[in-house]
């Protein structure tokens, strides 16, 4: 869990970094260039296979862990313990993960499937060097005209934030960091990371819907 979790954490930084190119507000030139690089470079395509393996391992391990742990108390309490000592999001990693999984299905259908398989609709973009690339930027713009899709993305980002606030520090505990000072620092870094990453992702559909980037 921890290793795949940390792997996904590092992936999210790259993903958020590339998507942030939309804010160059240059009609998507910079973003399309970056997306083309990611889609056409062999090393990155091989890493993509690793990414999918990582996600699936994390999901499978996550559900196995969740169901095994749930089976360990056949008879429960009449008065539940609730928040006496633990946070709701720490106890809801399976639920938050499931929301993320459902979101991934929508997200892959929106962007990954068209970009890799069925083709991005609309004309390609011609870069300054004459190269023609998929206009994923235009696809983003058209996708995020639908209010309900924007809301789904924002909801997923909120879930991601909670998943990471627990997951980030938990992963370091799992790999054996036990120094109290470091753990406190890692907890704060985790909260910062979770908020910045989720906010960055949530702002993307919002920026497009509200027309902040053209």
């Amino acid at each position, binding site marked *: 869990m921890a290793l795949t979790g940390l792997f996904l954490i590092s992936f999210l930084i790259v993903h958020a970094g590339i998507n942030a190119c939309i804010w160059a507000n240059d009609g998507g030139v910079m973003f399309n260039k970056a997306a083309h690089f990611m889609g056409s470079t062999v090393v990155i395509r091989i890493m993509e296979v690793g990414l999918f393996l990582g996600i699936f391992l994390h999901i499978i391990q996550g559900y196995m*862990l969740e169901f095994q*742990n749930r089976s360990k108390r*056949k*008879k429960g*309490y009449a*008065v539940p313990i609730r928040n006496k*000592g633990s946070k709701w999001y720490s106890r809801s990693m399976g639920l938050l993960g499931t929301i993320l999984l459902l979101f991934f299905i929508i997200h892959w259908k929106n962007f990954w499937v068209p970009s890799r398989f069925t083709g991005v609709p609309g004309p390609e973009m011609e870069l300054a060097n004459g190269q023609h690339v998929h206009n994923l930027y235009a696809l983003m713009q058209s996708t995020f005209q639908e209010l309900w899709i924007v809301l789904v993305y924002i909801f997923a980002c909120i879930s991601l934030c909670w998943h990471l606030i627990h997951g980030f520090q*938990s992963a370091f*505990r799992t790999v054996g*960091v036990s120094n109290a000072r470091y753990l406190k620092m890692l907890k704060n870094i985790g909260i910062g990371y979770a908020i910045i990453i989720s906010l960055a992702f949530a702002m993307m559909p919002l920026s497009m819907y509200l027309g902040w980037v053209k």
Partner: protein
Amino acid sequence: MEHTMINLTLKIWRQKNADSAGQFETYPVKNISTEMSFLEMIDVLNEDLINEGKDPIAFDHDCREGICGACSMYINGRPHGPWHGNTTCQLHMRAYHDGDTIVIEPWRANSFPVIKDLMVDRSAFDRIIQAGGYVSVNTGNAVDANATPIEKDLADASFAAAACIGCGACVAACKNSSAMLFVAAKVSHLALLPQGAPERNTRVLDMVAQMDKEGFGSCTNTGACEAVCPKEISINNIARLNREYMLAGTKADK
């Protein structure tokens, strides 16, 4: 503290034996002194039950001074009741007000089956200790107290972990019924000291293997264990256990 007498309603889990289904029974108790301990309050109720010719409530207790870890009770949704860093036997009735209802349940976990009423079988913990919670010592005269110098910080950290009384509240509070805080306390206690060094690798591997065999769940670092632990064992010990386990795995041929 002002001494007053209060009346309470108790809802207590009654179960004849391990195989019967069990149910809650409601008992009104009157004239309870706020200076009584929680267990004394149950003693009063039990005396009444015995006088009425009924079966008294079975519950574990031994030292009644917060050091043996026997008094397992899940009180109003929290192991060992409302006070922080405290055992049931050291909980006093001044924590309650006249007219309160108190729900008392046994520890719930597959690995802690109910024996009768509020008593559960915690021998799983004994078997985990047997698997590795010991040290090798030379026979002969007792070693001089300060023969082995130990750094103060390490001695303090080890002592803090050694404070675990094996009560099982950590398991009772954990959504995963994980015994990691208990095992982490026992492993840390010995791993931090030179006396624990000879079995350092096999200890952690064997104790964790026994813990899994007993059917406890896996830790997801929620922190409920640390919050209810009467000895305030730090959850950071679990991170140390994880590290000890990984390093031991690379060293010991097991």
